[in-house]
């Protein structure tokens, strides 16, 4: 039956010709090949987000008077609503984690090098978009923690000189976090960000397909010197089947987290109560939040928080352009970006743990 369908498609659309690149695509096989799964797992989790997000949209109602109640309805009345919402929330967090892990693996395996600079650029921008998904989606249940986290988060945006205040008002839909902010964030979360992410994701996948998968420099040198030592596996079906195994493991982890630790709904946001003591952002913003807390209120003549926000903005831009700072000369390739990556990883992890433990 499958061969009949295939023949039918091939007759009309040259199916075999379309699938040829997949059949010829190979993946390097070495002891670090497992790191290649991270991108695929992130893509799988993104797919889960799209599917569960669409299902949530069937019942979710954006608005200060309805959002919390509609999520409560999803959690308590809609059949398997609790599962869909919990998987959406857990999957979001796992996706951000795997996206970070993918980025650092690319850095440490030096996969960003020429000719893959644009793959890196599109990937880092995708990571920023994913964090934007997290920030905008966090407010949607309209609970107390989300309300105040958004208030603090948008206030930090307001610290940017000149553009900060207009940006804050644009994000909030006014001076304060209100129902207008919620509907605005809903728009970002379900229309603007998915549109941008889809375009960038297609570009990212196209570049990966076009440029192939990178091999660590040391191995590349060995394989160039001794081509018989080169090991590869076919992408389809060998690598894809392994990738599917990783997806199934991710699915099992997601299901276990959703069933044993369903995502908490919290208490409905009340703009007139004071912020809960020791309020913190989601874990993926914690390293930035903790850094801003540690900067003195004034550094020379600049406000400490403004300095922190500007520094993070600058570091973000430099991070996007990181591959362009590395020399093409093999002798000068070694060293500093790997060292910087290890330092950045230690900083992000250390500050996140410190922020989590700090009162």
């Amino acid at each position: 039956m499958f061969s009949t369908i295939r023949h039918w498609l091939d007759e009309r659309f040259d199916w075999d010709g379309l699938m040829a690149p997949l059949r010829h695509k190979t993946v390097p096989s070495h002891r670090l090949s497992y790191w290649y799964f991270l991108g695929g797992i992130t893509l799988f989790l993104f797919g889960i987000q799209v599917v569960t997000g669409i299902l949530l949209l069937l019942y979710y109602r954006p608005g200060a008077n309805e959002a919390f109640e509609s999520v409560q309805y999803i959690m308590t009345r809609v059949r398997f609503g609790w599962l869909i919402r919990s998987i959406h929330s857990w999957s979001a967090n796992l996706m951000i984690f795997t996206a970070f892990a993918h980025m650092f693996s690319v850095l440490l395996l030096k996969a960003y090098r020429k000719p893959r600079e644009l793959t890196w650029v599109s990937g880092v921008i995708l990571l920023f978009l994913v964090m934007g998904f997290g920030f905008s989606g966090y407010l949607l249940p309209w609970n107390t923690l989300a309300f105040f986290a958004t208030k603090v988060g948008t206030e930090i945006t307001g610290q940017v000189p000149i553009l900060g205040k207009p940006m804050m008002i644009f994000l909030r839909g006014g001076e304060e976090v209100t129902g207008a902010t919620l509907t605005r964030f809903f728009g970002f979360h379900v229309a603007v960000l998915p549109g941008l992410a889809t375009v960038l994701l297609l570009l990212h996948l196209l570049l990966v397909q076009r440029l192939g998968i990178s091999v660590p420099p040391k191995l590349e040198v060995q394989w160039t010197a001794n081509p018989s030592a080169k090991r590869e596996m076919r992408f389809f079906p060998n690598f894809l089947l392994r990738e599917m195994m990783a997806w199934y493991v991710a699915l099992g982890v997601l299901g276990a987290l959703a069933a044993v630790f369903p995502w908490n709904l919290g208490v409905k946001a009340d703009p007139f109560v004071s912020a809960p003591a020791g309020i913190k952002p989601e874990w993926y913003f914690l390293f930035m939040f903790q850094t801003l807390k540690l900067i003195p209120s004034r550094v020379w003549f600049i406000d400490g928080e403004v300095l922190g926000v500007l520094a993070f903005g600058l570091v973000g831009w430099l991070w996007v352009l990181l591959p362009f700072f590395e020399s093409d000369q093999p002798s000068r390739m070694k060293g500093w970006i790997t060292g910087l990556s290890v330092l950045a990883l230690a900083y992000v992890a250390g500050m996140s743990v410190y922020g989590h433990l700090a009162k």
Partner: protein
Amino acid sequence: MAILRNKLRPFRAARNLGLAGFVVLAACLGFGQTTNSCVDCHAALPDPLGVSQEKFSQDIHAQEGLTCTSCHGGDPTSDDPDKAMSRRAGWKGKIDRRQIPQLCGTCHSDPAYIRQFNPSLRTDQLGQYRTSVHGKRFAAGDMKVAVCTDCHSVHDIRAPRDSRSTVNPVNVANTCAHCHSDAAYMKGYSIPTDQFAKYSMSVHHEALAVRGDLSAPTCSTCHGNHGAAPPGVDKVQNVCSNCHTFQAQMYERSSHKKAFEAASLPGCVVCHSNHGIRHPDDARLGTGPDALCMRCHTPGDVCDQARAGLLSSLTQLEEAIKSADQVLGVAESSGMEVSEPRLGQDQARDSLTKARVTVHSFRTDLIDQDIQAGLKITAANLKAGREAMVERNHRRVGLGMSLIAIGIVLVGLRLYIRKIES
């Protein structure tokens, strides 16, 4: 040099102008300054004559511009003690205790005068004082009873809203206890001196002093401050209804009201006592050491049976609330969404509180209405909690089956990969 001199000219002019201004300002301050020879001398004297500038500056009267002469007369501008404290200058010396209420009343009973400083301040204190036990005894010549300065202090009188004031709600009990807990001082008045000790263990003291609830009662809330009782109350024993409105309304219509009046018993105080009021609990309806009803009623009579029924109903509702709380707590800690029944538990607790208030009607039918309402709510919440637990177990079974299915697929994939690669 000439150019430089010309450039400096405006600065020199400004400097000269500044110097002139400083001299004029210093002269004004020096000549305008008034001397207060009272404080100059009394600051150096030991108590009770010692009054420092620092102490007097804390006094609300000093802050409003009044001086020593406002009460004591004399001439504080003179450094000569004979002139400053001369009768010709109107000096009155130490105010005679018999004159204190009248002296304070000179201003505090004058609405037009007081309005200048604080339009909301009452001016009936002296009149009220004369109706009080203190005032009546004072008028009869008893100089041991409290006058204004005994409660408000003398040269450092603070507004009652100031937490350091001796008449701030938090400090009133201590102020009263200064005399009323002194057995030697109170000897001859034939009233107890353990009020403060009892009050210190009461639910009212805990609310006021421990929890900082300034609406909780202190001595003056029930006994009045200047008058004999708070406004609107004929007797101190009826004062409870000022705060405990519903209990009072229930009691007013109850059979106990008539019975207590017939026996000349003082209402609320019969069961709750007066100064040492403890937190009421259901044990008061029991037969143990804290039991109240059985002090008057006979075991086995109709009232005793009603008491036992009431206690049983209240206990039943309390236990039902605890059971539902426990189940909902476990469900919540398992991540189940039970905020609605949790909210419903507050309604059940309200019903229990209402039933306890209704006890003051001594009518079992009314109390039963509240109890049944609470039991109905609790049963619904308990059901919701149990359903949440069943749902939790279903989820875990579903998870187990899903993980087994995923495990089988993983093994299948692994075997398939091995097959195609061999």
